[in-house]
């Protein structure tokens, strides 16, 4: 066993373990943290496959941003685990059945020999000065420009939808207008001097 293969199996084992924990832990925060671990190890496996850009972006986007917000929400919500688990036992047989079917299917697909090494030769190791990021960028902005732009539009829709669905102006909440605050003049805006007749 080469060193790389050893590293692969170590990461793969951690990944499978973390993924199992994600779905079996009772506490949603633990699940989310195991998901973070799963992302991290899959990034490591991608690194082994010489896809360093994807690996780092996975850490950057999923671990660094998405999961942080996810944890944020999970921690804030007071999730009642008992009610969430209520249907668990009832649905378990069906779930196991489906899971077994899926596993058999995956084995049939992968084990069918369609993806074996005689069908596809193992890729040659890339030279040291090969730049994964640059080649991805090259292909993304030329050959795949149209899908890339459509994907950008999808993100725009996501922004519009999120803002459209959540933003509501409540009349009772008070806002400040910083630009107004900055433009305040020393004299007339801050104090008003009232002239009053003296009372007896």
């Amino acid at each position, binding site marked *: 066993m080469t060193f790389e293969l050893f590293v692969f199996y170590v990461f793969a084992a951690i990944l499978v373990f973390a993924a199992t924990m994600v779905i079996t832990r009772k506490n949603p925060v633990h699940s989310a943290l195991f998901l973070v671990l799963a992302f991290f190890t899959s990034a490591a496996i991608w690194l082994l496959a010489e896809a*360093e850009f994807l690996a*780092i972006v996975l850490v950057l986007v999923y*671990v660094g*941003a998405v999961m942080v917000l996810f944890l944020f929400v999970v*921690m804030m919500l007071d999730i009642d685990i008992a009610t969430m688990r209520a249907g668990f036992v009832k649905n378990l047989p069906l779930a196991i059945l489906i899971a077994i079917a899926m596993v058999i299917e995956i084995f049939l697909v992968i084990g069918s020999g369609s993806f074996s090494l005689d069908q596809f030769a193992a890729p040659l190791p890339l030279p040291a000065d090969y730049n994964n*990021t640059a080649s991805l960028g090259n292909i993304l902005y030329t050959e795949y420009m149209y899908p890339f732009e459509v994907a950008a539009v999808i993100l725009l829709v996501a922004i519009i939808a999120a803002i459209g669905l959540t933003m509501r102006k409540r009349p009772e909440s008070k806002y400040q207008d910083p630009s107004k605050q900055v433009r305040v003049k020393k004299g007339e805006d801050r104090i008003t001097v009232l002239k009053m007749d003296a009372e007896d």
Partner: protein
Amino acid sequence: MDLLMSLWEWLGENLVVVQILIKIVIIVAPLMLCVAYFTYAERKIIGYMQVRIGPNRVGPKGWLQPIADAVKLMFKEIIIPSGANKTLFLIAPVLTLGPALAAWAVFPFGDGLVLSNINAGLLYLIALTSVGVYGVIISGWASNSKYAFLGAMRSAAQIVSYEIAMGFALVGVLVAAGSLNLGEIVRAQEGEGGLFNWFWLPLFPLFLIYFVSGVAETNRAPFDVAEGESEIVAGFHVEYSGMPFAVFFLGEYANMILISALTSLLFLGGWLSPFNGWPLLGPMFDWVPGIVWLFIKTAFVGFFFLWLRATFPRYRYDQIMRLGWKVFIPITIVWIMVVGLAVVFEMPWWFD
């Protein structure tokens, strides 16, 4: 000396892991020392700014104060609050310190003087700095304390917000340098104009935004709402004591040094001499090694961290959010466009 060199080469051929470990020690040990004396510098500098003297009892002029602090923290009891999640509670400080140290792996201290010279160095840095937030979130949640939890929530939202501005500022650097490799980025700033060739001039708005976002990312004043001792006691690490607290402390200062060093690397020419190519001063300072320039620049930027803390009152939370989302992000996006145009049209002086 020859014996040492041949031993080193032998290690490189046969036991690469050991060689790498030695390199890591060579980087981390001085770094820890820097962290220790950075805390001392902070107390002294802020002391003088506030017309006090600062620590001056342990050792001559108080020089041994950081050592004394370290010893004290090491011998203090580690208190784990009841109802806390023990594993996560203890892992959290490590998660703060870990990324702060790991980031140095791709940091070039001089031309070619780097532990791991990878192509996607800049991306690696962004990824690692974004992971650092987990320490804060986990500590806040695992402490089973309202104050800690509030601090964690504040910190999570703040760091995620400022990460975007920070990332965009780095995109500007990437566009200007045309590479993600940190060494290449420094080399792109080399030129006849010395310090006027560095990226701080053409990328000035990004330079400021990167630094300010860095302050926010490290939860330092005036963006220290995650700690906010006058509001939520000490925020996420209110329940920590002894060594776990010390690790948090180390992590915070290591992060500050990292941000300062990165600022000097990306915008202030890294190991380059500021007088490079100048008629008289250039040759005069030729003998100074690059790492010294890097150290001076890092110290200079680090000083700003302390200066900010001594000078500014704490931002209010909604103002922090407004600054991040409505001011910084639009400015960075506009400036990326400007830089892009400048690069495309090969604007003289920097990009020709």
